[in-house]
């Protein structure tokens, strides 16, 4: 039992952050919940409208699909990067680390615009492909789901790499050595001894990327060019274009609940506390 003095000190340290959270986050979110039940009329009207709308259904399915593919893509690419950084001693290791962390210091907006420059009709990729004669007319690489996915995977990659890296750095080389000493080939040692130990890192990376992707706005909005309406952009449309505050709020609530459900389901398989704090 901490002394009273300690408790007072604890609360004094926590209170400012807590106050900011409550005033600028929790209260507005509660406000959204309220609006969803009161605008334009009191009742469940917005929710009924939402469940009956085909557009909403399509957008939700699209959102989950994009989030899922992004997650798989990030895991595949991220696993290789994390594995290389943590298992090979090389002078390139600090450089690779920097390349993983660099995106954190460059705004998402700028990174997404860069993809537009790369993927556009006369962007770098299409120009190059045409110059070397691989295509005659430009490929459609953006303003569609493909473009959104390419950019999303790029933006989300560090969130997959970092937890896996933290996990892999903690795995001693002696396990794979031991497996090989006991007769396992390099591949068997990886598959049956190393890989299972990296699963906690893979799960936390997956969870982080998936949850962040569900509510992501900037990249899908820019690369989708209004043709790939993920749920956040759909909400913005409702509120900005149609001033449908009630429906927009109801959709926000739905997204929040969906995200909470994902975390709840994940909690059955992963230790969320360690997964989200990246302590494996």
């Amino acid at each position, binding site marked *: 039992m901490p002394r009273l003095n300690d408790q007072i000190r604890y609360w004094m340290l926590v209170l400012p952050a807590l106050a900011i959270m409550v005033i600028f986050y929790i209260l507005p979110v509660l406000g959204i919940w309220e609006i969803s039940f009161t605008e334009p009329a009191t009742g469940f009207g917005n929710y009924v409208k939402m469940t009956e709308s085909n557009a909403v259904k399509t957008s939700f399915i699209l959102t989950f699909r994009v989030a899922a593919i992004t997650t798989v893509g990030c895991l595949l690419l991220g696993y290789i990067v994390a594995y290389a950084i943590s298992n090979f001693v090389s002078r390139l290791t600090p450089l690779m680390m920097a390349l993983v962390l660099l995106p954190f210091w460059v705004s998402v907006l700028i990174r997404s615009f860069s993809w537009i420059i790369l993927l556009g009709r006369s962007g770098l990729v299409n120009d190059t492909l045409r110059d070397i004669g691989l295509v005659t007319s430009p490929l459609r690489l953006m303003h569609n789901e493909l473009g959104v996915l390419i950019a999303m995977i790029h933006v989300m990659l560090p969130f997959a790499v970092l937890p896996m890296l933290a996990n892999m750095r903690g795995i001693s080389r*002696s396990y794979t050595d*031991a497996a090989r000493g006991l007769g396992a080939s390099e591949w068997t040692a990886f598959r049956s001894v190393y890989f299972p*130990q990296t699963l906690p890192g893979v799960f936390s990376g997956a969870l982080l990327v998936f949850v962040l992707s569900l509510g992501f706005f900037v990249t899908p909005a820019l690369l989708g060019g209004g043709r790939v309406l993920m749920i956040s952009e759909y909400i913005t449309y409702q509120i900005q274009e149609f001033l449908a505050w009630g429906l927009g709020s109801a959709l926000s609530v739905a997204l929040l609940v969906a995200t909470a459900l994902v975390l709840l389901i994940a909690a059955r398989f992963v230790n969320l506390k360690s997964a989200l704090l990246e302590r494996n």
Partner: protein
Amino acid sequence: MSNPILSIRNSVKRYGPVHALDHVDLDVAEGEFLTLLGPSGSGKTTLLTAIAGFTDLSEGSVSLRGRDITNEPPEHRDFGMVFQGYALFPTMTVRQNVGFPLKIRKRPASEIRARVDECLELVQMGAYADRMPSQLSGGQQQRIALARALSFKPQVLLLDEPLSALDKKLRADLQWELKALHDQLGVTFIYVTHDQDEALSMSDRIVILKDGKIQQSGIPDTLYNKPRTRFVADFLGKSNFLSVKVKSREGDHLECVAGEAAFPVDATGHSGTVGNSAEIALRPERIRLTEPGKEFLTGTVKQVSYLGERCQVLLTHSVLGQILVSCPTWKSGINPNPGLQLGFGWDADACVILEAE
């Protein structure tokens, strides 16, 4: 050695400017308990992992029963290995860990089950088959690592400081068990340690390493009683070192002097020319303590430490400096106190003439 199971020839391992192994030659006899002993950084692990196949030699070769295996990957060598931190696979149960080498070798499930049980019985861990490694104590993990390394009946078992993480009492118990296991199975053991007691108590033969070179090898008794260099005499047990001059020689019998002190030294196998200086090692427990005048030297007690079964006395002598004496408490007879004058002496064969390093 006729028909060694393992031969290491002229092996060198360089890490940049460091020679982790410096022209090491070693033969291992079938079924022997061989210990690689040396201080930290002396190259023990490097030699062991070179045998296991994890370390590529810069020069030299390793052969198994005459077949060159220098370039074979570890998984083809069929040696069991117990790693320093045990390296039990944390995602597998004890049973899966011990059965792992057999599963790799595609043995039928029923055979694996039986063999795992057998191995767990061997290390007295039968009741723990379904635990996870993290649920075991250090000593228990050590036993499982041993069972796992033995499960596929390897020709050679390699152990890298397997007991170093355990407390003293447990370590002593496991030393007996390991030795018993070796005698029971007849498998060749190559055992790495920096602990001289472990080396002396278990080994058929000890190889002492320093800076990647073999200093001396032999049976424990020889190494302890006839160390060749100051390093070996100092590393294996405690020694007093005396700088002396050879005064006269009669056969193998030398008369040595240090200042006014004169004493006999047995020089069997050494050249010890009259007039030359030499360094000799003298074990503390070979020195006799008496009342003053009854031995050929006299010193003053500086410090006494009581160790239960033994008592260590630090004497100062006007010429020889400090001399450490270790005598069994039960028969010391005299009760040494700091400041007391005591006579001390030893038999000629208690002294060993050291080679210059």
